[in-house]
Structure formats: structure tokens, C-alpha cells
């Protein structure tokens, strides 16, 4: 049994009927400028001749490496835990599911530093769980790379859950229903029908989560601390560098922008264009 084709045909005439009102261009242009121009400003302020030296310092390479590794780990956890959560939110029949959904969205609206403090008071040395971890196993979570991953996962999880839940709701349950009538168990229908169907949504959610992890600052600094090679990710290094060498901070910011654009450009259009 294979998944049915999901391409939808849109006729030429149908496309032509949806016109683009011209007055939308002005606010749309302003909105784009509001996002793009500050980044241009960053480019203008960059000390280009010193750029290679600023980017290739040991501190920035360490931070870039740590950022990429932790963002990858965090995104993987987001997929492993957030994926099932999205399915439950989209398909589950539980009382209070609406309330659960608003809890899941909290990290999107909370200042990240609040998330960091919350994590600190949960798994910090004096925290609810942290105290037990330290007494029973001698494990201290803050100041470790694991703490960075935890902080990033906290802020990035809703991005994956929301994208995937949207994809699940849009795709509906028709194909799964057909699979069920053909004798497929829920697990089989999920694996062979649902997962392939929402793969683009999962991918775009994962990309968003990854990009959010790369940019995470507030929760990391409040919870994980800042030590080169262990917890000092690229955004933390940018924050620190601007204290002593603004050129280095600008160069690192530019690097962060470039990496983020690359991540979004490589994976995003394919998923949206479909």
C-alpha cells in the first residue's frame, strides 16, 4: 500500500482570477524594508578588510562550532518530542486540549530570559529537580553544554509544533481514513500515510526551530552561562565582543545572519513553494 498522490491541479484561469491589489505594495514594501534595512546597515558597518581575521579567531570558531552542534541536537530533540506533541494536539481528543496548546505556545511570547530563569529554578542547583539530580547522581546541569541544548529546545519547540500541527490540520484525515478501511492499523497508517504527507511541514518546522536555536541568547545566558567551548554560543560571543571590540561583534553578527539566511534559503522555499 502506498500513499496516494497529493498534488492538486490548479487551472490557469483559477490562478488569474486571484489578483494582487496594487495598494498592498506600499505597506508590504515598508514591512520588507523594516526587516532588510537594519541587516544592510550591519553590512555597511562591517570592517571588511579585517573580516577574515575577526571570524577566524579561535573564540569565534569555537562559538560557531558549539552553535552548530547544539542547534543540531536541539532540533533533533524538537523533532523527536515536538513531532508527537504536534500529532496529539492536531488529532487528539482530550478535554482541555485548547489550554494545552496555549501552554505550548508560551515560549513564543515569553522573553527568552524568563525561560532561562524558569529552567534555572527547575534544574538549577537549588531547583526543584536540580537539587535531586545533584544529591542522587552528582549531576549539575547549568554551565554545561546540555544546558545550552535544553535552553534552545525550550525556545525552539513551539516553532516545530506549530508548523507541524498546521500541516496536519491542512492535510486532513481523509487518506488515513481510507487506509483504515483497507485494514491498516493506526500505527501503519501513521507511518505510511501521515508521515509522508506532512513531511514538508515537518521539514519547514525543523528549519525554523534550527534557525531559532542558532539565534538563542536570553535563555542560554540566564541558564547555561558563558564559557568558551562549553556554553558560549555565537550570540553570546557577539554580546560579549561588543564590550571590547565592536568590529568583532559586527563581524560575528554578520556571520550569524549569513548562516541563518543559508539555513532558511536551503530548506524553506521548497517546502513553501509546494
Amino acid at each position, binding site marked *: 500500500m502506498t500513499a496516494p498522490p497529493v498534488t492538486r491541479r490548479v487551472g490557469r484561469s483559477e490562478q488569474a482570477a486571484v489578483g494582487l491589489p496594487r495598494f498592498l505594495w506600499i505597506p508590504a514594501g515598508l514591512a520588507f524594508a523594516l526587516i532588510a534595512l537594519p541587516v544592510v546597515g550591519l553590512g555597511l558597518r562591517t570592517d571588511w578588510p579585517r573580516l577574515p581575521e575577526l571570524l577566524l579567531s579561535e573564540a569565534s570558531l569555537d562559538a560557531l562550532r558549539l552553535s552548530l552542534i547544539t542547534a543540531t541536537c536541539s532540533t533533533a530533540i524538537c523533532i523527536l518530542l515536538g513531532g508527537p506533541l504536534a500529532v496529539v494536539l492536531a488529532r487528539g481528543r482530550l478535554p482541555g486540549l485548547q489550554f494545552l496548546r496555549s501552554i505550548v505556545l508560551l515560549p513564543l511570547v515569553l522573553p527568552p530570559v524568563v525561560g532561562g530563569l524558569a529552567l534555572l529554578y527547575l534544574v538549577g542547583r537549588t531547583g526543584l529537580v536540580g537539587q535531586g539530580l545533584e544529591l542522587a547522581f552528582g549531576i549539575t546541569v547549568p554551565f554545561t553544554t546540555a544546558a545550552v541544548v535544553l535552553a534552545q529546545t525550550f525556545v525552539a519547540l513551539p516553532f516545530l509544533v506549530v508548523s507541524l500541527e498546521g500541516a496536519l490540520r491542512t492535510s486532513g484525515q481523509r487518506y488515513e481514513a481510507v487506509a483504515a478501511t483497507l485494514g491498516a492499523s493506526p500505527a501503519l497508517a501513521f507511518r505510511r500515510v501521515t508521515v509522508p504527507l506532512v513531511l514538508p511541514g515537518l521539514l519547514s518546522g525543523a528549519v525554523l526551530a534550527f534557525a531559532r536555536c542558532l539565534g538563542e541568547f536570553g535563555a542560554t545566558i540566564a541558564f547555561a552561562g558563558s564559557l568558551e567551548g562549553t556554553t558560549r554560543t555565537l550570540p553570546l560571543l557577539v554580546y560579549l565582543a*561588543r564590550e571590547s571590540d*565592536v568590529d568583532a561583534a559586527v563581524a560575528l553578527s554578520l556571520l550569524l545572519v549569513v548562516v541563518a539566511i543559508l539555513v532558511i534559503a536551503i530548506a524553506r522555499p521548497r517546502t513553501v513553494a509546494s
Partner: protein
Amino acid sequence: MKVRLLAVGAAVLALAGCGGATDSAAPAESAAPEARTLTVFAAASLTDVFTELETQFERDNPGVDVVLNYGASSDLAQQLVNGGPADVFASASAATMTTVTDAGLIEGDPEVFAQNKLQIVTAPGNPENITGFADLARPDLQVVVCAPQVPCGAAAEKVEMATGITLTPVSEEPDVRSTLGRVTTGNADAGLVYVTDVASAGDTVEGIAFPEADSAVTDYPIGVLTSAPQPELAQAWTDLVTGADGQAVLTGAGFVGAP
């Protein structure tokens, strides 16, 4: 067409509404000529002291409103270099003051009005029994310091050099307050912060003085900006800070007075 006007109108209103707060202050000032504003950019560690001096200054100079902009010295220096309007700049490090003087923004030479020293900070009662700087190198302790890029971290590095003791901190925090926070929340056993931070934290921590701190004293310079809109008031503020009254408030907050 109507929709376009509405959209543009709404956008203009939104922008005007957001920006209006600062504009509306100007005409009110010109209506009362004796009302003057003195803008002071000051290091965050001076918050308590300068807020107290503000009350005194406004009492002694009727009609004057002192506006204090507190922040990290390096951020304030960047704001000044990029055209931030101010009459006085009080920095927590000689190096950041140099950024501003090098840009030709300070009238004459800045004056050192206070000094700060490092102290070891621990939980109340000093549960880990730390007696001196060398104890901070103990492997069983979780120690936090400031990053070398910020003044308190530079001072910590100086003490390490002077003593030959290398610390292995679990974190190098971006400012002295977050270093202090690690200890007050119990997530670190000990930290290196300024005497004034220990004083401001009160009973939540215990400070341990150590003689090697004398090798890394931080200077606080103050200067009047060449572009100051209120140069006389700026000078009066500087005189207050460096004078007997200012020095009393400073030493009361834990600072070492002007050298």
C-alpha cells in the same frame, strides 16, 4: 482607494503615536525658560549613588531636571561616539573613557572620582569555608567570574596574573550583576565581584576581602562632554560628585574615594 488611504493613515498614526512621546517634551521646556535638563550617562554600578545625588542636585538647583542614563560603560561610550546627547559621562573603567576622549568628546581631562575593588562573594555564612583568593582554585568549587572583556573580568585576570593562581571558572559572565546572581541563586559556590556589589546585595551574600585585590583597582573617571548643552550644570554635577558630599555617598556605598 479608500482602503489605501485608511492603511496609510493607520500606519502614519501608528508611527506618530510611537514617536510622539519624545517630541512633545520640547515645546513645554521652551515655555518655561528656567527649566533645564542635565543629562548624565553613568555606569550601572553607580545607580544607587547617582540616584541619591540626583535628589540633592535638584534640590540645590531649582528648575533643573537631572536625567540619568545608566548602562554598561562600553554601551554608553558607544552611544556617545554615535552621537548620543549627554552633558556628563561617568564611566566604570578608564579604558571606556579613553574611547570617548579619543573621539575628542570630553572637555579637558577626565577626573578619577572613585575606585572599586574586587571581593570574593559566597553564600551567607561562607559554607565552603573560603579564606583567600587561592581557595578559588579548589577543584571542588563552582566558581564564576566576569569575562575578561568587561572591567570586572579584566580586574580578575589582573589578580590571577599578580598571584600566579589560575582559576577554572564554570562560567565567565557578561557583567558583574549576573556574576553576583549566580551566587545569590546558589548555582555557584563563589564569585569575584566588586565590593560595592557585595554591599548592595546585603544579607543574601557574604563578602570576603583579600589583599591581592589591591593589584587590580578599577578607576571611575568622570568628564564633561564638549558638546554638552548645559556645560555649567555639567561642571556643577562633576563638582558635587568629586566634592565632600559626593565622596561621602560613594564611600557609604562601598566605593574607595578619589585617590
